[in-house]
């Protein structure tokens, strides 16, 4: 069924269904609790992510956004439904995907230097680059570190760097593997606010320069709106998609101008109401919000 009927270039204006980099069809996840009773972590979700687009998943904790990302990454099997990455069904971690974890300190190999960590990405790459000598490898490593704004740290250990710098190393490592799809799971939630702004712009630049398809999980609505082409709001309690919002804000985005844009403020209010509204449903009968 995967006949190529279109000769349109990658990421054209009007994407055909086949050009979706990620296609999620009725994917759901149910866990078994310790007593054997089923726990619905995520009720069936449909979502298509076109190639080269930037989609953010937002929602409160427990809405299943991280679960959905783990399903796409092939780290956990979906209980039902189907997920396709680049047209191929996800049965395990797909090669064209790389994942940036929230917990960067545990994701980096602590016994390897920063440079060796990036070289790990080069070695275990989707699109391997020819490395004929150590000097060539080191040059590539330096190039990827420079892309994330790190200089002169190749010989340091991750534990010697700040949190924001460690997450940059993790991003450089993922880039070195030259993936088509980049999944990020609340990558900046443990980083201070000012570093976060810099890292957001870094991710935007990398997304555009490497023509990546990005699925970005965050609980920060401002972050989602600032970064994404589309913001997908998940319902509380894993109840599926609440709303799928196009973000028509102009690019390049700017930390000050974009955040003052009337469309930004309007959409921010709408999404906030949605997310907080799903809280009202969960509130106690007397109308008071739960602490």
């Amino acid at each position, binding site marked *: 069924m995967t006949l190529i009927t279109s000769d349109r270039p990658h990421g054209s204006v009007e994407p055909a269904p086949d050009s979706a980099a990620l296609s999620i069809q009725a994917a759901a996840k149910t866990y078994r609790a310790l007593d054997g009773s089923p726990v619905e972590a995520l009720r069936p979700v449909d979502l298509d992510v076109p190639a080269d687009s930037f989609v953010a998943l937002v929602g409160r904790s427990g809405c299943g956004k991280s679960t959905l990302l783990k399903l796409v990454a092939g780290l956990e099997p979906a209980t039902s439904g189907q997920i396709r990455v680049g047209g191929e069904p996800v049965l395990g971690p797909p090669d064209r995907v790389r*994942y940036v974890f929230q917990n960067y300190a545990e994701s980096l190999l602590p*016994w*390897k230097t920063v440079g060796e960590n990036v070289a790990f990405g080069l070695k*275990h790459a989707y699109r391997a680059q020819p490395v004929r000598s150590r000097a060539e490898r080191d040059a590539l490593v330096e190039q990827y570190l420079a892309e994330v704004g790190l200089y002169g740290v190749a010989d340091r250990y991750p534990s010697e760097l700040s949190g924001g710098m460690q997450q940059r190393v993790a991003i450089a490592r993922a880039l070195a*593997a030259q993936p088509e799809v980049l999944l990020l799971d609340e990558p900046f939630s443990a980083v201070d606010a000012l570093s976060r702004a810099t890292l957001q712009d870094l991710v935007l630049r990398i997304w555009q320069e490497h023509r990546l398809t990005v699925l970005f999980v965050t609980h920060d609505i401002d972050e989602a709106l600032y970064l994404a082409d589309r913001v997908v709001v998940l319902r509380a309690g894993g109840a599926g998609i609440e709303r799928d919002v196009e973000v028509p804000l102009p690019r390049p985005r700017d930390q000050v101008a974009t955040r003052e844009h009337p469309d930004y403020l309007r959409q921010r209010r709408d999404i906030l109401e949605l997310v907080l509204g799903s809280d009202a449903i969960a509130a106690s009968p007397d109308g008071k919000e739960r602490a």
Partner: protein
Amino acid sequence: MTVTVITRPAASVAPATAPNPVLAAATRGPRLRRLGRSRLIGWGVVVALVLVWEISSWIQYVPTISSPSKIASVWWAEVTEGTLLLQLAETLRTMAIGLGIAAPLGIAIGFLMGRVRVIWALLEPLVEILRLTPATAVIPVFILFFGIGDAMKIGVFLLAAIFPLLLTSYAGARSVSTTLRQTAQTYRLGWWQTQWEVALPAAVPFILVGARQALGMSLVMSVVIGMLAGNSGIGFYILMAQQALNIPALFAAVFTVAIVGYVFNAIFLALERRTTRWRRTDTSN
């Protein structure tokens, strides 16, 4: 003035509360402060104890506790003309063979138990029973089966050393966090690659601790074996000196074992520091 930061060795005994560096610098000189925090003063205590022992023997000599100078002269004579070094070498030879077999075996079994569920299920009860059996209790059994030759001694060293290595290797193999495991998965490492590039390096710090424990156990056994087998080795030497009431030779042998233990431990600590440099670096936030 720049405040000198003294990096403390990982395994030395750290003071419970670090003195306030600013206050200390204000009250005492930086050199004195550095001395106060280094282990050099601990060596001063050792020297002082030996001196007290020596001086007390000048005041009143008690043959059963001898004196440091007498022990030193007997030690030198035993090393140059006697059999002390030969007996020590004999013990270290069997110990090296025992440890040489125990290390790859213990590390491999422990690691696989930590990584492959069926191997864990297969061996866990056996390991639990055997690891709590004191190797000293097994010596008479081994003597019965293997006699008092090399086979018995190597077997005892093997038994004493394998469990610390096995258990720490197991703990190290289990120490791989979910995030690290998933990182290996998303970079599509195969089973062997995951073990070799992720799990084994993660287990190394644990294994080095086990190696040091194994060495300590082996040193204990090195003496006990000679005493129980009664044919050769440093333990046999100590037993003979005691039965001949050759007190200075007895002390000389005991101190020799202590020095050997200290040197081995120091070598392993240096190895640990070299290979786990990444662990001791501070996070800046």
